[in-house]
């Protein structure tokens, strides 16, 4: 009995480490955009420095988004974004930890586009909230494109809009995620 257990144990440990390396897909140049339609002016920014990892076996997903990586057309807006709204010095990164809820429906060995639902915890400005978003996973030639669009509310993340511009800045922000993941050889 002892020997049998030991074999199972070593088997499990071995399996866990091996699959861990093989099934991980990653990128360091993932793209996240956000857009907000507002009366005064539209607010849009682009970030190409997103680190993302997907474990195809379990469907586990993790994103790390450096807030200072968001580029605005108007530099002043970028400064205000970092200084007054998301407070990048205090909260340098936004994080997402989650899972592809219907991971079993995706065949990572076969090229194709799969509709998925992603669930998890999104942390922005030091505040963590549960989010659920529809997305697509496109398998193409050993690469995995993961994309999603969803909305968040600034008020959910304690990002306050000053009273003077309250009517001019929307509380709802559209977030678009677009990442091309490659196999991780760790």
């Amino acid at each position, binding site marked *: 009995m002892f020997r049998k257990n030991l074999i199972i144990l070593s088997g499990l440990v071995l399996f866990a480490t091996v699959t861990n390396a093989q099934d991980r897909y990653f990128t360091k140049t993932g793209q996240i955009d956000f857009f907000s339609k507002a009366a005064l002016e539209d607010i849009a920014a682009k970030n190409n420095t997103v680190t993302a990892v997907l474990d195809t076996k379990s469907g586990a997903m993790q994103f790390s988004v450096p807030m200072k990586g968001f580029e605005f057309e108007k530099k002043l807006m970028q*400064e205000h974004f970092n200084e007054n709204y998301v407070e990048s010095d205090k909260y340098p990164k936004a994080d997402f930890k989650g899972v592809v809820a219907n991971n079993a429906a995706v065949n990572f060995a076969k090229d194709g586009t799969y509709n998925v639902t992603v669930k998890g915890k999104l942390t922005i400005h030091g505040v963590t909230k549960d989010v659920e978003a529809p997305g697509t996973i496109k398998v193409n030639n050993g690469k995995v494109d993961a994309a999603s669009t969803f909305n968040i509310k600034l008020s959910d993340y304690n990002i306050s809009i000053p009273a003077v511009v309250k009517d001019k800045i929307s509380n709802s922000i559209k977030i678009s995620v677009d990442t091309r993941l490659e196999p991780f050889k760790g």
Partner: protein
Amino acid sequence: MKSKPISLVLATFVALASRAQDTDLLKGVADTTPKKEYVYGAFKSTRVIMSHSIEMLRPGVLDFRILHRFGNVNQGISEFFGLDQATTRLGLDYGISNNLTVGIGRGTLKKEVDGFVKWRIIQQSTGPKSMPFSLVAVGGSTVVGAPWSDPARKNLFSSRLGYYGQAVIGRKFSERLTLQLSPILLHRNFVELAADPNDLFAAGFGGRLKLSKRVSLNVDYYYVVNQNDARTELHNPLSIGFDIETGGHVFQLHFTNAIGMNERAFLTETTNRWGKGEIQFGFNISRAFQIAKKKT
């Protein structure tokens, strides 16, 4: 019975293994080496109040500046505490690059036109090869436009000119506190009295204390080193006020004893004294427009 504790150990191991797996997906992927990061937002504006601050305009930004000083507050209600009078300067500054800003302006005092070039040599940064402070060099010129006081005399255009060179050394000590030192050399081609120095040295001190996300307390002072001592009517300029920032605007509301709004004017023509209540209420309005847009 013998296998029970072993199963327990096994279960614990499996649990630990799977937990380790799902908590740290980024391990080995995320770059954890610290990066060099420049320090921004040392001041809310490119001026402390009167002086150039270590803050620069971003490239492609046009800053329209309206400067306004009322009369002395100690004149009482008959002059509406100075609000009946006004001295103004209108100016345009432009950010050519991240480290180069130019500007022009015209003030009502002596109908003076002034221009400057501001170059950031060192920018404060954190991370590898960090710099603890910022260093900015400013060179400027002023042209008096007012009619000659004595038209009968032979007057040269060059007599209207003044120049200054200034170094601004500053540091954002924390999110809230920024301090700067700004020695300045001012040259006037033409001075009022023979005993007045053509070259004037002054030491500038500026600081900001951030009170909230959008409001800061600013202090701006110059100690003029070699003022002609016979000119007892001249004093060192001191301004104290608040910066209020609302999106693209910065409002600098302040009290000052300096009527002049360029370096030549406030260093050589400040005749008011704080101690006597000879101070003016004033404001600077800065409105930034993004002219050239960076492709994203």
